[in-house]
């Protein structure tokens, strides 16, 4: 009886969801605020990539919140897994083929990550994506070499400096402009690397922060395997 009622309810919900979803035009511009963003991001922020313009410029304060959430998550995990003894990863060394190829690929992945976050205002991607790509490169080295170690002190210093840079840029907007995280630097020519004011600076800081955080998190986790 309960199953029959559940199936009946599912059909009713499915019917009405499909009815509503089919009435929304798929992939077409709906106008409104989205249209405004697409038309005036270059004029208002100097960034060619409108997604970056929204994430860092229009919604910069939300991005600061996101970075804080990630920082708190990484700190909480570090506190849970904290151990006084310095531990080694108990993984086996990988085969010669994996070791050799990961040694060649690792710098290229790190370069790609750096490219993605430096060019965040021009091409798709940005600080979060670039940092995550760098962390996956380090992960490749972690699982192929048992002796590959990261300097945790340096990682935490990079993380703190990057976070402070973000907040400092925000307060500079408050001091030299009118609001927190205001774009006070000149926009330059849209499409060039040195353009869009504070957007590339913030995304470089976010990239370093996310990369360092995720690397430290993975190292902490991998060291718990016995």
């Amino acid at each position, binding site marked *: 009886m309960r199953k029959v009622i559940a199936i009946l309810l599912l059909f009713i919900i499915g019917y009405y969801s499909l009815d509503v979803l089919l009435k929304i035009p798929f992939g077409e511009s709906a106008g409104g605020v989205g249209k405004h963003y697409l038309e005036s991001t270059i004029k208002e922020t100097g960034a060619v990539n409108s997604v970056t313009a929204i994430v860092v410029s229009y919604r910069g304060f939300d991005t600061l919140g996101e970075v804080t959430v990630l920082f708190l998550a990484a700190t909480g995990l570090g506190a849970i897994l904290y151990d006084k003894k310095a531990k080694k990863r108990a993984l086996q060394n990988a085969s010669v083929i994996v070791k050799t190829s990961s040694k060649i690929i690792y710098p290229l992945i790190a370069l790609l990550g750096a490219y993605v976050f430096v060019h965040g205002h021009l091409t798709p991607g940005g600080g979060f*994506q670039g940092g*995550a*790509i760098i*962390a*996956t490169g380090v992960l490749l080295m972690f699982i192929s070499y048992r002796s590959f170690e990261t300097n945790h002190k340096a990682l935490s210093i990079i993380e703190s400096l990057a976070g402070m840079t973000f907040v400092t840029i925000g307060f500079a907007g408050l001091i030299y402009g009118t609001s927190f995280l205001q774009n006070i630097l000149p926009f330059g020519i849209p499409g060039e690397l040195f353009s869009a004011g504070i957007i590339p600076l913030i995304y470089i800081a976010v990239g370093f922060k996310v990369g360092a955080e995720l690397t430290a998190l*993975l190292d902490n*986790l991998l060291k718990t395997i016995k």
Partner: protein
Amino acid sequence: MNWLTIVVVILSIVLIIAAVFAVYQKDLLLAVIGTSAVSVVLSVLFYILQAPDVALTEAAIGVALTTIIFVITIKKTKRFEE
């Protein structure tokens, strides 16, 4: 019918199959690989739907980092669901 539409439909079917596989698989390691396959297909779909920023995030976080965190967790707990 546009060829891009056919590609999107095929990818969506693969996506649903991988997701159902991940839910019903008793071997958790295989289930994690199923979720990782979902992420791969989803990032291609995001790219086709003109959201390359989201596709990059999905590819880096969903395929690599989430999978390795789940694999470490399975290594430290049990591999088979009861």
